[in-house]
């Protein structure tokens, strides 16, 4: 009996140096990890905080419903820019999302070959092209043809920017779907195209949507591609083939102006832009999770 006690006591305080040192290193590493997270969070929190601080005061009903007023006149807002951004993003998504998802499906299901590799390469290159260059291309392709700036051209530019991101994430998400699922579908006599769309893609839905929202959030704040395409507009415009206001453009214009009133409105605009983007992503997340069944991933 006493022997057992002695040996267990020995086990508890077994090689003391090793255990203390290892515990210390463990805690140190945990601390480092937490620290890095905090460091990353700091700019994020700082930006949000600063935006709130600088912009919140300027947001009022007039801001959200009125078009810009000339300098000197009180009031005015960015209503046209908010609506214009929505139009441009809608057009961009309508073009970019189906093309991007389609490309992703091709790469994952049919493109496991040299040709697919070439497409992947081109997609990565396109991803790295500066946004202003894309804007100039859109200018050349759409604006020069139509002889005017338009929301359409802006949407076109944004679509080009969305496609590589969406294609790559869609491909990755589809590759994550286990081959067993595809085999189950083929085993039921479902044709390959149908299986890909209704089963493989459906299984990867949440991942694909994440990819889409990533691309969306990125282009929602892009300014450079809209410079030569949507061009901006101080007045209401609901036509797709005329120059259109957009939040990032408006913020840019106001921020580089010499007027304090406009600087104030720029802060407010920036805050509204961030809120809208976060809101859109959150709304989609909630909608997706509501549609998911009990027990599914």
């Amino acid at each position, binding site marked *: 009996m006493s022997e057992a006690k002695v040996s267990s006591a020995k086990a508890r305080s077994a090689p003391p140096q090793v255990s203390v040192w290892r515990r210390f290193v463990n805690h140190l590493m945990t601390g480092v990890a937490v620290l890095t997270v905090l460091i990353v969070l700091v700019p994020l929190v700082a930006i949000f905080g600063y935006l709130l601080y600088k912009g919140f005061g300027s947001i009022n009903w007039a801001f959200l419903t009125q078009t810009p007023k000339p300098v000197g006149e009180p009031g005015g807002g960015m209503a046209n820019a908010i609506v214009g951004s929505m139009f441009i993003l809608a057009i961009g998504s309508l073009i970019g999302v189906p093309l991007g998802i389609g490309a992703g499906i091709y790469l994952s299901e049919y493109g496991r070959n040299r040709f697919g590799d070439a497409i992947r390469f081109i997609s990565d290159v396109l991803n790295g092209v500066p946004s202003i260059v894309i804007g100039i291309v859109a200018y050349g392709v759409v604006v020069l043809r139509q002889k005017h700036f338009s929301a359409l051209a802006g949407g076109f530019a944004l679509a080009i920017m969305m496609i590589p991101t969406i294609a790559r994430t869609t491909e990755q998400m589809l590759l994550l779907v*286990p081959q*067993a*699922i595809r*085999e*189950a*579908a*083929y*085993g*039921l*006599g*479902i*044709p390959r195209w*149908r*299986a890909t769309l*209704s*089963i493989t893609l*459906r*299984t990867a*839905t949440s991942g694909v949507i994440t990819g889409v929202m990533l691309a969306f959030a990125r282009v929602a704040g892009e300014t450079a591609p809209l410079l030569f395409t949507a061009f901006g507009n101080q007045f209401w415009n609901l036509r797709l083939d005329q120059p259109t206001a957009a939040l990032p453009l408006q913020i840019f214009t106001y921020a580089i102006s010499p007027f304090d009133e406009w600087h104030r409105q720029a802060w407010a605009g920036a805050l509204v832009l961030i809120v809208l983007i976060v809101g859109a992503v959150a709304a989609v997340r909630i909608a997706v999770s509501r549609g*998911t*069944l*009990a*027990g*599914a*991933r």
Partner: protein
Amino acid sequence: MGVGIQVKALNAWYGKTQALYDINLHMQANHATALIGPSGCGKSTFIRCLNRMHETIPEARVEGQVQFGDFDAYNGTSPTQLRRRVGMVFQKPNPFPTMSIYDNVASGLKLNGFRNRKQLDDTVETALQASALWEEVKDDLHKKSGAGLSGGQQQRLCIARALAVQPEVLLMDEPCSALDPISTGKIEELIFQLKEKYTIVIVTHNMQQAARVAEFTGFFLLGKMVEFDKTEKIFTNPSDKRTEDYITGRFG
């Protein structure tokens, strides 16, 4: 009703490597035939040649003839048409995770164009009853996802999904190897009942299972079929020494 399966001179390759050598076999309608053999002997490849799943692998090739009753699997039938008549259940249960139980079972029908709601309801219920799963899930048909069931239930769901398409033949590739003994027992009971309406071919690593479930057994070794006979004969007095060695655990 099930149909008999006649296999003549079947050879199969993965790229340059030959996996099956000149297989000749007749599997009786409304009976269960078990295929046994050590790992890599070709039994899984063989069963996948029966419903042309072997072709889905790039650079895979098949030569020979597979006849189901009166229709030829390789000449004059497309793979999708074939697979609606020859169903398959896989080793690891693979229900569609984002679909409900109902949608899982109905998927073979829905995605092939059948939309009649009443017909689908009836077929789903019949299939779930045939796979002894109805009582356990009838209240959660639309609420629970296919992946939210236990392993044994998932496999029975996969069986129901295969049966809903009303095939004539059911191919099972080691259906119980991922399951516990009780679930295995339930599925073996099921196979017994299914024999009345379907022809069943089951690949298994478990010789006792083959003995319990199948009337005929084929022993595969290195891509060739060494012996094919009534199960009692194979397990009490096989003709080929290699079969005897495998069955008594002398190798493999």
